[in-house]
């Protein structure tokens, strides 16, 4: 899973949100993505890329960069 994959999931999960405004380290909750949107993004990552983020790791998956790092850690 690469950055483009994550951006694609975000775009599909949050209709109307301009994903190009998100930097790698932009935290979702400070960028107009609320907790419900975050849940949809995580579900999309799980369904499309098999990435499961348990509740206790939510803060490790609140930006594109953190998601990529988390996925790398889980696969490594």
């Amino acid at each position: 899973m690469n950055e483009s994959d994550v951006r694609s999931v975000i775009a599909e999960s949050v209709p109307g949100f301009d994903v190009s405004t998100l930097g790698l380290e932009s935290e979702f909750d400070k960028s107009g993505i609320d907790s419900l949107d975050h849940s949809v993004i995580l579900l999309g990552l799980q369904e499309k890329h098999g990435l499961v983020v348990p509740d206790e790791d939510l803060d490790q998956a609140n930006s594109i960069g953190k998601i990529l790092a988390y996925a790398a850690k889980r696969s490594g």
Partner: protein
Amino acid sequence: MIGIIDIAYYLPERRVSNFTRAGEFALTDSFINDKLGVKSIALSGEGQETSDLCVAAAKNLFSRGTVNPADVDCVVVVTQNPDGHGLPHTSAIVHAKLGLPPRCLAFDIGLGCSGFVAALSVVTAAMQSQRLRCGLLFTADPYSKIIDRSDRNTALLFGDGASVTLLGEDPVWEAETFDFVTTGDKRDALIVRDNGLLHMNGRAVFEFCATAVPESIRRTAQSNGITLDDIDRFVLHHGSKFIVDTIAARLGINGRAAFDATDFGNTVSSSVPVAFARNVCADDNTVLISGFGVGLSIASAILRRAGH
């Protein structure tokens, strides 16, 4: 065949606006409008018990003249927030308050948001097998009894209300094959903890609704020998606007599954019958109903207008 003859409901007049509390929870108006979909919640009056909500719904039903109270031989209340401590059962209290005849089966069913649909299966089957002729199926689960008013996950979502469904022969709506789901390993996602207050894991509930409910709905259509295109209207539990919209989008049924709890909130087991009574119209002949939540559980069914 036993089926639905009529549905009536009652929503308490008292309201609390969510917009006045949005700042308290750092929520925007657009979140309330577009995600929760609930602008105000209905609250029971001071001292108004679960059975009182049922009685108010029954009075609305009786005022239509579709049933003679003296004919009622079955009373069921779906609730997880009964009168007092739950003993005696709330259905017996409702029975007394309505002055119903003594030759009558009365019992409670302890289910939440899936409760109306599941109870419809149980009660129609019991009436059919025991030749009961006139049933009143109530739903009333006033979550105001268990809501933590400082909890942003639940305080702006749930409202109080009640419904009553008249069941009997020569119905207007008939149900055939139901679909049931229970995932007990996820039961902690909606739970009343030792402090007596409701706790909800919003993410877990959302994921369950977004994945398991569409599957249940597809199975229900298939087991009843129809496709989703054959269904005129989908009456889904009004968990929140976001959940209804998500399920509708995943099934491709937008426009046939409206959210209609803006002025009173998620009324738990009452949401499906209330939405049914408010939205199903004369042109609707095939309606899918689906309740989902506490358990976590789902109950879905197809209702067909008699003669179609």
